[in-house]
Structures are given as structure tokens and as C-alpha cells.
């Protein structure tokens, strides 16, 4: 084995693979990936709800940001009102956090309702609608954050602690760690992905949604209310954007910073395209994109050994800032590369981006 590692280039690759296997099975790389993928996956579910019914949503970013802010502020205020409440044993729920999450979901739905109104009723350009939402969200949360200058916080949700024997199982232990040693919002993603996948392809709602996204007039002629369905799906999609926001300020961080979504909403869009508008595919895309960031964290906290380690620490010593920033840039670069490689073969629902006008209506 060691002999192989000495081969130039190939040796590096082998060392890297060995490191990956070790990191996945022994460190927190797997659960970390799932955690980081959570807002992307939730944003993607929001995108799927929109685009499957024929609405482009590039405002996911703004929806998340608004929800993150509202969730944080509400949770903080409730926490100040009742600081003594005990967190639950599992996940560490407090009334403040629960109300905060609900508020974030509400905010996500509210902003989505604005998007639905602009796209469906006003028939505004859907790209502009999303852009407006992003701009207003950034401005409004920035303004209010500066004005209020919050100093407190409501704390965060805790990851679940799965039984030791499960995570210590050889070979498969890391899978349990990945899906169980995480917070409640992260855990809910898996449930939502599966439910949405099944509903989309097996239920009446799913059939109608897909028909409306592909050929709204055909749906209209068999008596389906296209506009109502679009409204409903876009607003329900806001739940996911809201949860993604809640994850940002109530599960992953415990503070709000201006623009903290950091373009996650757009990575989510790429995940939707990557996953060909299926929840499971988009979830896979989210994991893929964010794996690089989790890996960066793993490498920096637990650098590989051998030649690869020497090589990396050499770069780190010479270019510390570039080294760190390269890891930060990785998800965006990966998204870009995957998008360029995949999108040509990925076809969106046919009616995406086109406002629907009923026949005979002016």
C-alpha cells in the first residue's frame, strides 16, 4: 500500500482517496456534509415546488434571508420574554426556538405569496420578481438589523445524540452518524425529500402540478385551476425556504449577519437543475456541492498525513489566505463546473417562466 503512495501524481490521488475513506468513516465529514447541504436542499425543494408548477424562482435567496432574520428576531424576543424555559432533552427545543422556526416559516410563505402574486396575478416577469425579492430582502433585513442592533440570541437547536453502538458499528456506523447525529431541521430534510418525491410522482397533486408546469392550457381545459394551483404551490414552497432560513440562524448559527445566505439560494437553483427537477436528485446535488466545503473543514481540522499532507501544509504555509479562501470558494466552483457539465442535458418543465393567461381573458 505504502509503495503505491510513492508513485507520482497517482500516489497523490490514492492518498487522497484513502484520506477520504478515513475522513468519512471516522470524522464528522458525513454529518457535516448533510448539515451544510440542508439549506441548499431545502432551497431546492422550494425551487422544485415553484418550477414544477411553471414558476421560475430566483428569489429563494431573499426568501431564506428574510426567514433567517424574522426567525432569529422572533426567537430572540420570545427568549427575552421567557428566558427561564428549559430546553427539551432531545434537540434542545425551547418555546423561543419553536416560535422562531414557525415565524421563519411564516416569513418564507409570506415572501413566497408576494412572488406568487407578482408571477401569477400581476404576470410580472418572473426573473424580475425574484430579483426584486432578493433586493428587498437584502435591504430590509440589513436596515432592520442595523436599526435594532440585536445583542441577544435564543441559542441554537442541538444535534441528536444517537446511541453509541449505532455510530460505532464498523463500515456502516458513519451512515447512522450522518443521518442521526444532526439537528432537527437537518433531519427533517430527508423526510421532506422522500415525501415530496413520492407525492410528486404518485399523487393527484403531483400529477396536476407536473401537468401545469408542462402544459398549463391542457390542464386548464380539463378543469384544473392553473392559477390557484400555482399560488398554492409557490406559497407552500415558501415553507422550505423558511426552514432553510431557520436553519441559518436557529440551528447552525445563533446570530444574524447581513447577507448571511451567501448565495446559497442560487446554489439551490443549481441543485434543482442538477437533479432534473426531482427532490431526490436535487438532494444529491446539494450533498455533492456542499461535500467540498465539509471536506475543506475536515482537511483543515485534521490534515491528511504523508506526502499529500506535506504538500497541503506547504501550500498553507506559503499562501495561508489563498489556502483558506480556496476551500471557501470550493462549493461555488463545484456548482459552476457541474452546472456547465450537466445542464445541457437537463430540460426544465416546459412552461417554466411563462405567465399563464386563460383563454378568452384579456
Amino acid at each position, binding site marked *: 500500500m505504502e509503495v503505491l503512495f510513492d508513485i507520482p501524481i497517482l500516489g497523490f490521488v490514492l492518498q487522497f482517496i484513502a484520506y477520504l475513506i478515513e475522513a468519512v468513516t471516522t470524522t464528522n465529514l458525513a454529518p457535516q456534509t448533510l448539515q451544510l447541504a440542508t439549506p441548499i436542499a431545502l432551497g431546492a425543494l422550494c425551487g422544485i415546488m415553484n418550477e414544477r408548477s411553471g414558476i421560475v424562482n430566483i428569489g429563494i435567496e431573499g426568501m431564506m434571508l428574510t426567514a433567517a432574520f424574522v426567525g432569529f428576531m422572533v426567537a430572540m424576543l420570545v427568549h427575552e420574554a421567557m428566558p427561564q424555559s428549559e430546553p427539551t432533552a432531545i434537540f434542545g427545543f425551547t418555546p423561543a426556538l419553536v416560535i422562531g422556526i414557525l415565524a421563519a416559516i411564516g416569513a418564507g410563505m409570506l415572501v413566497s405569496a408576494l412572488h406568487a402574486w407578482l408571477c401569477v396575478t400581476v404576470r410580472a416577469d418572473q426573473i424580475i420578481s425574484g430579483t426584486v425579492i432578493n433586493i428587498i430582502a437584502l435591504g430590509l433585513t440589513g436596515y432592520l438589523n442595523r436599526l435594532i442592533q440585536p445583542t441577544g440570541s435564543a441559542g441554537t437547536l442541538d444535534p441528536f445524540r444517537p446511541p453509541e453502538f449505532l455510530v460505532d458499528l464498523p463500515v456502516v456506523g458513519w451512515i447512522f452518524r450522518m443521518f442521526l447525529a444532526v439537528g432537527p431541521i437537518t433531519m427533517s430534510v430527508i423526510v421532506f425529500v422522500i415525501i415530496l418525491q413520492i407525492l410528486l410522482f404518485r399523487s393527484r397533486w403531483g400529477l396536476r402540478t407536473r401537468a401545469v408546469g408542462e402544459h398549463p392550457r391542457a390542464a386548464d381545459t380539463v378543469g384544473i385551476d392553473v392559477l390557484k394551483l400555482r399560488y398554492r404551490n409557490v406559497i407552500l414552497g415558501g415553507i422550505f425556504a423558511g426552514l432553510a432560513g431557520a436553519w441559518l440562524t436557529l440551528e447552525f448559527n445563533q446570530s444574524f449577519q447581513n447577507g448571511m445566505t451567501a*448565495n446559497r439560494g442560487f446554489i439551490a437553483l443549481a441543485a434543482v437543475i442538477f437533479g432534473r427537477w426531482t427532490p431526490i436528485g436535487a438532494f444529491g446535488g446539494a450533498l455533492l456541492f456542499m461535500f467540498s466545503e465539509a471536506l475543506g473543514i475536515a482537511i483543515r481540522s485534521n490534515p491528511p498525513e504523508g506526502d499529500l499532507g506535506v504538500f497541503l501544509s506547504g501550500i498553507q504555509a506559503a499562501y495561508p489566505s489563498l489556502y483558506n479562501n480556496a476551500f471557501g470558494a470550493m462549493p461555488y466552483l463545484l456548482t459552476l463546473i457541474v452546472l456547465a457539465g450537466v445542464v445541457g442535458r437537463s430540460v426544465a418543465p416546459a412552461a417554466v417562466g411563462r405567465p399563464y393567461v386563460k383563454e378568452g381573458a384579456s
Partner: protein
Amino acid sequence: MTALRRLWALAVIPIISIVLALLLGSLLIIASSLAIGESLNLLLPLIAYESLLEGATGLSLLDVNAAGVPSLAFSIDPDRAARALTSTVAAAAPLVLTGLAVGVGFKAGLFNIGGTGQVLVGAFVAAIVGAAVADQPVPIAVTVALAAGALGGAFYGFIPGALKAFTGAHEVVSTIMLNSLAFFIIVGLVNDIFKIVGPSFARTADVGNAALPVLFGRNGTVGVLIALAAVPITWFLIYRTTLGFEIRTVGANPSAARYAGMSPRRLIILTMSLCGLFAGLAGSIEILTLGYYPAVFGTGIGFAGITVALLGRAHPVGILLAALLLGGMRAGAPSMQITANIPIEIIDVIQGLILLFLAAEVVIRRTFRIRAERVTPGELGTVAKTYGEGTV
């Protein structure tokens, strides 16, 4: 008469949108002042907007007494007005360019939200090249640094253009990814490679003679002239040349463009590069005014370009007017923050609200019974249409 009426038809909806946004903004100002525990002051928005106006133009309309009660008092201090107007124009200049960086893209059915990244790359390249030619004579140094920055931006626009043309990756996502990439990489480069010893924060070397010469006031630089020149040049390019016709055709109907013997791929790449060039130029102007590149260079001009282009209806003249409005808001915001204690970010909110009302133009039209031309550039439909559709 008809020319005036045509102009009015074009401008009426943007104007109503601005007024409505200011009204809604004042509600927000009142509500948020209550939320942080101040007493109810219905005149607060008035004071805020007046100080915004004064900061932007030097024109004072109100006199506020010690108790915070304003009274109407018109006054203008020529020196102050000159300073304020210079600031407004200086703030507007890069916005004109980033507005064009988005607006020209609209014409080709492209939504360039990559202005931020293109500004960063352009600024960074201008700073590095500017420092390298810092000792050359001013005309040479300035020209070289500006050209380098513009080309840097153009290159950074070329990438998403080529990606769209050859792989179908939609620019809405790819340009955003490139924004983040540019940010991370440039911070790393400045910290590790181009940092100079001395200053308390990481920054590049001084651009010396490449700094933009000041023509008037404190900060009325050559950049203002460049921005002013860009408007008619762009107008001529878009509406009077065959290339402009090609760009507009591919924006309005890519299939028809192909049928007419144009090459949508070439045009997409070319237009995105042109957009990048404008944004890169804007970044260069910013950085060559500042004199160096700080590791974390936060500038909202790339993002604000979207607002400028939409408000200006993607028309060069409209973009100029919209940039002046936004430039004025940027120039006046600090004095508003001091006088009325309202965070500068309120202008971002107001800009967003303006766009919201523009987007809801149908509703405005119905409410105010207006028969006017559509505000939204028609080519935007192509942006939505190409979304996820794959290769052109």
C-alpha cells in the same frame, strides 16, 4: 408636443414607482422608529428625505428647531450645493457603467447578475496594473490601468457568456457563482501575494500616477466623463449599428436570429464580455479613485446596476437618469443618517420598493388609469425562457 408626450409615457410609471416607494419607505421609517422605542414622529420621514435631498443637492427645504419640529425654510448654499452635486455625480458615474453592464445584457436577453464579480475583477486588475505603471506619465498610467481593468471585467463576463453559449449553463446561476469565486480568490491573492508592508490592513500598493485626475470639486474625476461618454456610445451601438440590431434580435427572438444568419453563440459571448467590460470599467474607476485595492473591497455598485438598469428601462438615457437618482441617494444617505438617525440601508429598501412597483406595473396602471408603454424590457422574457432550456 408629441415628443413630450412620448417621454411622459415612458417616464410616468417609473416616476409613480419612485413616489410610491418613498411613501412606503416613510411608513417603514415611522414604524421602525416606534419599534426601537422612539416616540411617534410623523414628520420623521419628511426630515429624513429632506436631509437626503440636501445631502445630494445642497438644497435645503426645512429648518429643524431644537425640539425637532421642522418648518419650511428654503435655502441654498452654493459651496455646499457644488460639493453635494459633485458627490452625487461621482457616485452616479460607476452606477451608469454597472447599469449598462446589466442593461446591455437585457438587450440580448441575458441577465447579467455578475456585475459584482466583474467589478471586483476589474478593480483588482486595475489596482495591480495601476501600481505597476504608477511611475509612468499620468495620461499613460491612467489609460493603461483603466484599459486593464476594463479587460479584466470583460474576461470575467466572457466566462459566463462562453459557458452559456457552449454548455447552456444559465447566466443567472453561473454569474452568481462567479461573484462568490471572485470574492474569495481576490481576498486570498491580496493577502498572500499583493499585500504591501506598512498599512494596518491588507491592501495593494498605491496606484500613483494611475489615480484618476480630479477635474472638478473634491471627487469629480475623469471617471465621470467616461461614464457620460459611455451613454451615447452605447445608444449608438445598440440602436444604430448592425451589431446592435443583432444583439437586440437575439434578445427578442434567438431562433429568428439564427434564421437571419446571426450567430447567437457569438452574440451571447460578445454581449456578456461587453457587459463585463462596463462593470470592469466601473470597478476600475472606483479603485483608481481610492488609490489602492483593500483586501475586502465591499462595493454595492455591481448589485445596484440591476436596479439602475431596470429603473432605466434598459435604455442608455434611462440608465443615466436612474444612476443619477441612485447616486444622489448614495451621496445624501450619510447626511440623512446623521440628521434623522436613520440607517443608510434605508436607501437599499427604497430601491427595492421602486423595483417592486415597477414589477407590478400592471397594477399601477390600473390604479392610476394610465395608458403607457410597458416598463419591463421585453427581452427579459427571453431570460426566463432560456432558463433551464439548455443550449441555445
